């Protein structure tokens, strides 16, 4: 039997598997996770068109609509996941196996990221085609780096929430609902975050989606640089810092949660 990093990798692949393969078997995702967000995107597009907003704004909305898939995945399938795992008895089996819980979280994150990218791509392609979005990519390399760092920081945040939310028990559902809409608003999913003013935009930057989308807008639309909150290079640096902070914090809290689970005997017991 493998030990060390080989076991770590096996665990990541195994835990990513239900996300990548299992979720595709539930065909309802096509309706709930692509069609419904597309309807929301369409509503914003028609509002912008009615206001005669610049064409790039239609693109902002389509991009925001695609990125909502990731935020929904973070709050419903990452943050709440450990609680569901506790509820169905998987968490106890994870803890008592010789694997690392961090590998479980990473597997959840990587699997979720992969499956959600598929959903986001569908929304993006559909929106671009239906609303004729004019993309002008100034630096594909930077765009790739921004996307990768945004995902790393975002899923790092999801991993941190997954550990923390174990404390909330059944209240996790309300917690998620509370996070969903405010983050859509504060992260500027459908408009440039610069319009909030510096202080609010800075505060909103704690959610990696804020700077990630701002940087992506700057890199993919001709009017992007003029409505950017910070320079792209600065945003890349901040996203890198956020990635490190969230993943380190996730590891710290996960270890703490495991210790608490074993000391108190509360986190692996479905009856408590």
């Amino acid at each position: 039997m493998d030990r060390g990093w080989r076991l770590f990798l096996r665990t990541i692949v195994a835990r990513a598997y239900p996300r990548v393969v299992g979720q595709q078997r539930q065909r309802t995702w096509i309706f709930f996770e692509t069609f419904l967000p597309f309807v929301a995107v369409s509503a914003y597009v028609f509002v912008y068109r009615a206001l005669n907003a610049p064409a790039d704004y239609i693109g902002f909305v389509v991009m925001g609509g695609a990125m909502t898939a990731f935020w929904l995945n973070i709050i419903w399938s990452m943050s709440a996941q450990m609680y569901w795992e506790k509820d169905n008895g998987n968490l106890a089996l994870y803890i008592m196996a010789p694997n690392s819980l961090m590998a479980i979280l990473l597997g959840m994150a990587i699997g979720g990221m992969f499956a959600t990218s598929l959903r986001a791509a569908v929304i993006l392609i559909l929106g671009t085609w239906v609303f004729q979005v004019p993309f002008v990519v100034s630096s594909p390399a930077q765009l790739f780096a921004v996307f990768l760092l945004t995902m790393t920081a975002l899923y790092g945040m999801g991993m941190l929430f997954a550990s923390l939310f174990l404390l909330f028990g059944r209240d996790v559902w309300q917690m998620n609902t509370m996070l969903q809409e405010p983050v859509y608003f504060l992260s500027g999913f459908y408009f440039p975050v610069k319009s909030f003013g510096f202080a609010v935009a800075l505060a909103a930057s704690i959610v990696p989606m804020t700077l990630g989308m701002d940087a992506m807008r700057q890199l993919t639309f001709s009017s992007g640089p003029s409505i950017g909150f910070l320079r792209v290079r600065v945003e890349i640096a901040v996203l890198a810092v956020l990635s490190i902070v969230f993943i380190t914090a996730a590891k710290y809290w996960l270890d703490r949660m495991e210790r608490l689970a074993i000391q108190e005997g509360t986190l692996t017991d479905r009856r408590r």
Partner: protein
Amino acid sequence: MKPEFAIHTEHLGRIYKVRGNRREKRQLKERVALRDVNLQVPRGEFFGLLGPNGAGKTSLIKILVTLLAPTTGRALVAGHDVAKYPQSVRPLINMVSGGESSGYGLLTVRENLWLFAQFYGMDYRTTRTRIDELLEIVGLKDRANTKTSDLSTGLRQKMNIVRGFLTDPHVIFLDEPTLGLDVGASRDVRQFIRNWAAAKPERTVLLTTHYMAEADELCDRVAIINAGKVLDCDSPANLKRRLQREAIFHLEVSPLNGVVHGFEHLPGVRKFVHTPGDGKSELELILESDDAIGGVINTLTTHRARILNLQKREPTLEDVFVDLVGMSLAEAEKNG
């Protein structure tokens, strides 16, 4: 050198801190789940923990599988201290619980089993071979590619059993593995466990159950546990032999009312359990000798109770439990 004992506990205790009611919200009450548990289970033994719900069986298993820290004492599994070196214990053990709903419903039986094997670092070929073998043995081979969400409770529990044994653990912990299963499925599961343990002499099984017959049938030794304390520990045959000096009677009589309390003072009556039933009462009596039954019959007749059935029988583990605890397993569960 391999340790002599697969499981060894010394003065093991566990106290839970539980929240009080609304008025006492801020106060934490202490609930003793285990107290001064001393057990030695040699390698290769099929060991049973027998007790009512809430006796402390699951707490003990959780400590042994590294899911719960003891409050006092220590526990060693396969020679390693579970609290200090959980990482040394974990590759050597596995656990199956009754009524488990682990795994992912969207994955097939084979995929779920593969997934859990990966958490133990098992390579692809070994995993595939073992899954095929075990599914064949438990009669689940034809459902290998069925989604877990489409399985019945019994089939799902068979999958859980395979999951636990897939890693070929040195020590397997079975927490009420036949809970909620029908008679046929329970028999299949027991048969599988027995064969698995018999296949290699160093394999150790710790089974918790509140089914007396299950413990009697499977276990080399049984510890009887109630209210967190181990009351006795021996082979089922020895435990029952201790009662063979006594006479055990089962009576069915017309419904009893006040007369129930009168038995306590009858000469020769050691223990009795009264179970009111539908239109009749059942009495289990442990008497010092056969002669004492005369007094019981006289008392029943005086109170105009009709005797519907009277049987003298061999002692069972249930009688051992009654003798040790002073009440039946069902009563112990009712009293919490």
